[in-house]
């Protein structure tokens, strides 16, 4: 692959990751729905009800801003090694945010009979499906960032000793 083709491919991959994390943050932050328990008590479900979803939104916002700034880095700069470190750290941040949000979303969908927690997705189905979509987008962003980390290690650290010098 020629150098410019490779650079374009990497740029496109970073763009996909940026869009995925942006979608995850926006969809999760904009999900709210009014529901009612037993038809009497009405409440509004927002993403800020749970710290796990807040953490998910914050993590994806941080990664989106970082992804946007990295797009402007010229490809000959020496800072790409620092970008590798940041990619690694932010991939772990994304993993932790998805794990946390998924744990709480699983309780919301299935409930936990041992703790007396009832599932709430029946009263707020639109909120639940929007949260699921945000989680899927976050997962896609995570996979793309993981591939970017693997590629950065292959290019900068030469793990398979391809270069002769």
């Amino acid at each position, binding site marked *: 692959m020629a150098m410019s083709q490779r650079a374009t491919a990497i740029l496109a991959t970073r763009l996909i990751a940026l869009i995925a994390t942006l979608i995850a943050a926006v969809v999760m932050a904009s999900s709210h729905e009014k529901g009612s328990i037993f038809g009497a008590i009405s409440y509004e479900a927002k993403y800020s009800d749970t710290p796990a979803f807040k953490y998910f939104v914050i993590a994806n916002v941080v990664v989106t801003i970082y992804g946007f700034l990295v797009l402007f880095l010229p490809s000959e700069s020496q800072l790409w090694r620092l970008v590798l470190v940041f990619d690694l750290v932010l991939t772990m941040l994304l993993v932790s945010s998805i*794990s946390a949000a998924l744990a709480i979303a699983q309780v919301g969908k299935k409930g936990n009979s041992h703790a007396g927690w*009832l599932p709430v997705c029946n009263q707020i189905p639109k909120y639940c499906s929007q949260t699921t979509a945000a989680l899927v987008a976050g997962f896609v962003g995570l996979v793309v960032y993981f591939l970017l980390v693997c590629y950065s290690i292959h290019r900068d650290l030469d793990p398979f000793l391809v270069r002769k010098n």
Partner: protein
Amino acid sequence: MGEEEVGQKRQKAVVLVLRAAAFLATAAATIVMALNKETRTFVVATVGTTPVTASITAKFQQTPANVFFVIANAMASNHNLMMIGSDLLGLDYRGFKLPLVAILDMLNAALLSAGVHGAAFMAQLAKNGNSHARWNEICDKFQGYCNRGGIAILASYVGLLVTLGITVVSIVKLLKPKPQPQPLASEIEVP
């Protein structure tokens, strides 16, 4: 050169100590969470004068996030044990070991991070409840279960930090220039 060898030996010792610390932390987290169980008997009703009691058990298997926590920490401690073993036995696959160790360390760091954060947020939910979803807190009734869970999560966080340090060291090792095999003095032919 003696200096280089001393530096290399010191780096090996540092990595060994870090790996032992990570192994101990993640193994402690696994064991404490896996043995986390508490049974309480509550009075649910009174029939006449005799109270009717029901005993409720809180186990770690009831929460999928805690199950994932136990599995993730078990895999991470197993990985660290294998790495300590291979370091002590001196197994070396002529250059392929370095990237393999770095990639495995990164994967373990990500796995540990996921496990500990899922369990931490579930523990926050158990401690504070969620008034919007009408989920009551359960830590006021099962204090021992919650305390032990908290200790396990803390130990796993310590293991995660140490694993991050180990990952940094493994990646830095990849950055060093690889020693090219030098021809022996007897092999160099003078034309």
